């Protein structure tokens, strides 16, 4: 479980998050939605320690994460797949995965075998440089690299960005399956609200740094006002 309590983040005079409070339950997908600049990425970066909040706390189960270094938070089991995916282009597919496995508790070979089974295309391309992968393959690599460490929490930042709808659908199905088969807590940041709401259990809508809605995914999806004003879902 990830708990965010009255989190405020400022960059100079700009207030990126204002008193944001939310919970991402264990074994569930919590979607964080909102327009560009709503503070979604800042929220994830604060959870994983890249951004230090001005006030408020982030906790993993009972443990307060605020002010720990990102590498220590990662070692506690928080996996973060950053926006733009962050695969290391100069590394081969396998080197990227080996890097992800640095903090893993299972043996490297076992972890690699698992990820190649889950994402067969990565197995076929294990010796290739990540620079040669397509956008969808890079996203898979970024996910596999986070998952090989067996995190208890997975933070996904705009996984659908720049992907074809079919690839996005496959990816979302993979996330949903992961969540259903393990106790993984997923925080899914998306601009593409409809595909996120399809798999999420819970949804939080941010607008200029504040929470404007916090409800089940079904309720958010059914709320005409939210859809129109904050999610840009106009039929």
């Amino acid at each position: 479980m990830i708990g965010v309590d009255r989190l405020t983040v400022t960059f100079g005079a700009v207030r990126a998050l204002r008193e944001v409070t939310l919970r991402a339950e264990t074994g569930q997908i919590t979607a964080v939605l909102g327009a560009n600049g709503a503070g979604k990425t800042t929220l994830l970066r604060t959870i994983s320690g890249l951004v230090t909040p001005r006030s408020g706390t982030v906790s993993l189960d009972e443990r307060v994460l605020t002010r720990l270094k990102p590498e220590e938070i990662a070692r506690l089991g928080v996996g973060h797949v950053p926006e733009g995916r962050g695969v290391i282009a100069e590394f081969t597919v396998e080197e990227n995965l080996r890097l992800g496995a640095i903090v893993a508790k299972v043996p490297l070979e076992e972890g690699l075998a698992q990820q190649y089974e889950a994402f067969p295309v990565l197995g076929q391309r294990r010796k290739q440089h990540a620079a040669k992968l397509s956008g969808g393959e890079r996203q898979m690599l970024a996910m596999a690299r986070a998952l090989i460490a067996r995190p208890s929490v997975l933070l996904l930042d705009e996984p659908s960005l720049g992907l074809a709808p079919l690839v996005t659908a496959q990816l979302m199905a993979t996330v949903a399956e992961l969540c259903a088969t393990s106790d993984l807590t997923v925080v899914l940041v998306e601009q593409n609200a409809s595909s996120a709401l399809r798999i999420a259990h819970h949804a939080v809508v941010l607008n200029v740094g504040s929470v404007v809605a916090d409800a089940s995914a079904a309720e958010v999806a059914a709320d005409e006002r939210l859809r129109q004003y904050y999610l840009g879902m106009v039929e």
Partner: protein
Amino acid sequence: MDGFLTSRVVTDILGGLTNGAIYGLVALSLVLVWRATRVLNFAQGAMPMFATYLGMGLLSYSWPYWVCVGVSLVAAFAIGAVTERVLVRPLYGKPEINPIVVMVGYLIILEAFAAAIWSTTPRSLPAPFSPIDWRLGGQPVGLSPFSLFEVVTALAVMGAIVVLFRYTRLGLQLRASALAPEVSRLLGVRVGRMLTLGWMLSTAVGAVTAILVASNFFTGLTPQLMDGIFAFGFIAAAVGGLDSPVGAVTSGIALGVVLQFVGDYLNSNAIILVALAILIVSLMVRPNGLLTRSAARRV
């Protein structure tokens, strides 16, 4: 055959390879630090010089030679670590000129301290192997047991660095920290430690170089020991590409051979001029280095 092996050309090539191995090591140590922390370390010669004084100075207390070498390496690791933590860390993310100014100042301070403590009189270090050239049919071949030792040591150090970076978990983390620090931290890599380790390794490579240079009968150990060598190593690193360890080492060796011919056939005063001309031409033609892929690197 004997005539060929003792010919002027072969002698120059062998002598050039020996010098080039040293330039290659200096270039490699510069690249290690540049890749990890984007700092052009102008004290790259002075830091190992200091470590060499600390370690090899124990020879006067009749400590065994190889123990002194070991102490020099440990001192180099320590100097590298302290320098990165205390002097360099506050400079990350600052304008590029800041670390340059700080490192030049550090160079001057280290050399002044060394002179104050140990004086500027050269101390001769015993060469662990004979520095007298082998002879074939009465003619020197341009290679002595010591210069062979220099080349073998240089190749062994370069090989060890390659194995460390390519094939080990630690090497993977060192490379990742240099290429993508933020992503590495998100994956649990302790990037700060990796950067410190990069400086430690680089200073240790430098100490190996400094000991080899100081063991040369004609130089001996002085506070300015590495100044000239640093210049050639720097040129080699710039020509080969500051991001490319292979490029730095290769161009170091090539530079050694070319300059040996220049010194022998032209004039030894022309060596530094030719070296600078090579630097200027290569910066005009391939500003990123001969062996760096020319595409901009995405960090």
